């Protein structure tokens, strides 16, 4: 099993979720994060003064899938979340040793 961590733009969540649903992914976990990266340099004006917003609001979407589906999921997310502008985000693939469903105690692929 692998955990696919995707850092995306907040307003892309709906698109990503739908694209994943289409390929049969039914579970994911979303959290609000703030990102720091190349996108820095963005400024906002408050009362005429410029403030550099170094941390940009992003969402982290975590999807645990069997190894054989990793590429499919990654490609789907890349397509759905991309705008082509700096700050689109990253995907990190992380190994998962074990997966357990709390409700039933099931383990492995059956748990997701």
């Amino acid at each position: 099993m692998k955990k696919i961590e995707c850092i995306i733009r907040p307003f892309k969540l709906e698109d990503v979720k739908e694209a994943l649903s289409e390929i049969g992914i039914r579970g994911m976990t979303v959290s609000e994060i703030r990102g720091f990266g190349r996108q820095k340099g963005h400024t906002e004006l408050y009362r005429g003064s410029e403030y550099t917003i170094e941390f940009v609001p992003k969402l982290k979407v975590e999807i645990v899938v069997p190894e054989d589906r990793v590429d499919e999921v990654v490609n789907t997310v890349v397509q759905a979340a991309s705008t082509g502008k700096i700050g689109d985000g990253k995907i990190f693939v992380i190994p998962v040793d074990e997966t357990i469903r709390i409700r039933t105690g099931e383990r492995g692929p059956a748990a997701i």
Partner: protein
Amino acid sequence: MFKRQTFPCLILLLLAVLLVQPPVFAETSSPTANPGDTAWMLISSALVMLMLPGLALFYGGMVRRKNVLSSMMHSFVALGVMTIQWIFIGYSIAFGDSIGGFMGNPLDKFLLRGITPETLTGTIPEYVFIMFQGMFAAITPALISGALAERIRFRTYVTFILLWGTLVYAPLAHWVWGGGWLSQGHLLNGLGALDFAGGTVVHLSSGISALVAVILLGKRRGYPSGDMLPHNLTFTLLGAGLLWFGWFGFNAGSAVAANAQAGLAFVVTHIAAASGAIGWLIAERIHQGRPSALGAASGIVAGLVGITPAAGFVAPWAAIIIGFGAGVICYWGVLAKGRFGYDDSLDAFGVHGVGGTWGAIATGIFATIGATGLVLGNFQQLVNQIIGVVAAGLYAAAVTFILVKVLDATMGFRVDDEQEQMGLDQVEHGEVGYNF
């Protein structure tokens, strides 16, 4: 340990003194208060009181989350301590027997002595007049807190506003409203400096003091930086709404009766608030491309500040110009801090100092009702206005300079760097604003 208890002891001592004062009995005096005027002044006093929670929201929304309670407390504690100061000596200094036109005798009406429920000021009970004026005494020092936000010690702030209210606000109120040297019938050709509801006494004085204080105390750690964004602009908008609402009491209440002048003050106040918002939004639109909610809130306050000294003297058409002008000029005023490099956290100087000056001058230009300004050919009034601004500004700046220097040296005005980083809510009050 002894030092920590000084303040409470002082209070208890004063309370003890009170107990020996002979009880006040109601006297029967022939003239009684006019119920209509009294009703209006009761509610006006309440409206001005509500400006302090309004200011707490307005300011509290603009600071970072970690300082929200600290910032709100600056307004609330001002309402607390300035009320008590006002009852003890503030009112007496402002409205007691004049000592050479400079200040009232602090003992004259110490602890409101000699005043009973039946005592009148004009057509209303003096108690109501004391309250109305007392709310002004509470909000004025609280305005300064906007400049100092996010970096100062709570106890030093409390000491500062008590002293500033006593040494700056109350004398200035005496100068202009208490029969002092800037009042009509006194110096300046007998015309006096016009200040209907406190453009100079309230806004200019607090604004200029704010500027002096922040220059002396220095910038916030890390200023300017991206994480100093307003943490909750919905509060700032709501605060601006409450300020607008309360300002009807502030300005139209300054007629001290429910009469034609109150009606005039109400209409020009409302127009100026609206015009101020429009002015600021247009300035933003041109200068930064987008009109913002913070801009609307700021413009409302700027317009209200601008019309304050003029409210009983100008016609509706002039209110449009004064309000719109205030919006544009104060927008320029807040930009100044970027240029000159001081850190007026929430633009107390940029809005109240600049807007108060503009309002005082505009009053000298546009006064046409019950007074004659430049548009009616009276140049002298404009000169008087400028004299009033300069005199009040210099006086406030000088006293503030000394107060800040002394308090910083004795009590320490700023928290240390680590505390500033952790946030004043936790450090000074042992709380956090939100536990979501």
